[in-house]
């Protein structure tokens, strides 16, 4: 029994129909309980007052915005090396989720920045690199949409994803060099000293888990959709020929 068995679309669909309800349930549970915990039962912070509650949306979505791209990178590599269709379709299915996560991170950041920094937007390195990440997502999706042959599209988007990853990292360092930041340091890290206080930390962890499960559920579901669409197209093509 190996992981690669699930590269078979039929097996993948069978597995995903079994685990999907669990993931949807866990996502809903974690998101609802984490957000309610954070919104109703955590104190206001000294400096930020009630805006500290935005952290429960901002940090998880920002994490996911990056992690979704990493997942797409891994899926693209698997497609290029082992040519499992499910992998390519999973990368395709994940991209719009990444876009939404990036948008949420940007929006909540802007809404938080307005009262705290006195501006909706600043050309801070972190903000700028997220905007650039957003552009990369748009280009990736546009390339998928533009090419008709699914295998060609999968190959080209995978190459773009690899090259894009390198340039995204480069851009990150370039903007760091280019402008000094307003942005807070990491709110979560292995270094305990830097972390936010425990009152905020635990509900934040629950929210992050919620975002992760939501992402897993969405990607599995959307991959299934792509597999079905592809099979429909193949069957239709066979009908036309017959």
């Amino acid at each position, binding site marked *: 029994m190996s992981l690669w068995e699930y590269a078979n679309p039929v097996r993948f669909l069978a597995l995903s129909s079994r685990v999907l309800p669990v993931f949807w349930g866990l996502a809903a549970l974690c998101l609802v309980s984490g957000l309610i915990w954070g919104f109703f039962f955590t104190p206001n912070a000294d400096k930020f007052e009630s805006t500290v509650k935005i952290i429960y949306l901002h940090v998880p979505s920002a994490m996911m915005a990056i992690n979704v791209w990493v997942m797409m990178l891994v899926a693209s590599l698997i497609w290029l090396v082992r040519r499992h269709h499910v992998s390519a379709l999973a990368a395709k299915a994940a991209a719009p989720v990444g876009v939404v996560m990036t948008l949420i991170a940007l929006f909540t950041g802007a809404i938080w920045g307005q009262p705290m920094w006195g501006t909706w937007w600043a050309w801070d390195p972190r903000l700028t690199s997220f905007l*650039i990440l957003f552009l990369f997502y748009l280009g990736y999706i*546009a*390339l998928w949409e*533009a090419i008709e042959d699914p295998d*060609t599209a999968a190959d*080209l988007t995978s*190459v773009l994803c690899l090259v894009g990853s390198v340039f995204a990292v480069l*851009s990150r360092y370039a903007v760091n060099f280019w402008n000094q930041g307003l942005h807070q340091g990491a709110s979560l890290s292995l270094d305990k000293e830097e972390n936010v206080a425990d009152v905020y930390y635990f509900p934040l962890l629950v929210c992050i888990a919620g975002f992760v499960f939501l992402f897993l559920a969405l990607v599995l579901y959307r991959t299934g959709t792509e597999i079905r669409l592809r099979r429909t197209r193949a069957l239709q093509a066979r009908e036309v020929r017959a």
Partner: protein
Amino acid sequence: MKALLIRDLTLAFRAGGGFGLGLAFFLIVTVLVPFGVGPHSALLSQIAPGILWLGALLACLLSLDRLLALDWEDGTLDLLATSPLPLEAALSVKALAHWLTTGLPLVLAAPVLGILLALPAPGFFWLVVSLALGTPALSVIGTFGAALTVGVKRGGLLMSLLVLPLYVPTLIFGAEAARRGATGMDPATPLLMLAGITAGTIAIMPFASAAALRVNLR
């Protein structure tokens, strides 16, 4: 390889080859900027390095869709793919030809346009140096974009969307070097970074471009 380079260059210089279009575009953008932001030379001299870099970048971008599209249409690319010359090398040569016909003229024209935008005197040298170091990277990255979208009909807009984010590091370091040069600061650090990016892209991007083109030629 030499034959391919000479062929690309003569095609570009011939009527309808598009040589000079990029230059003309660069000129027009530079002329339009004062209309947009006002004629005050204090403001113009402050933004001149950035505007000139941006203009050069856009001029480069505009000439990219001719880079492979014509050869794709008449089947030259298929011939190149089956020739003994590796596709990576062929694409490097094509990028070089693109730089010689687009990037190099832009570098040479930039000081003249700098006068129009009241670029401070110490800025001219560093502007030319930064453009000379940076534009090869623009051509090589652009070749990758062209190889990705060569099979797409009317792919020009799509290519801009794909290529422009890839231009971000080059633009940041290039414009930063030019700006530092113009304001009398030391431009060495961004210039070195820029040179690093150019060297890295020249070394690696032809492989990515060739991979993309092979998929499109399949």
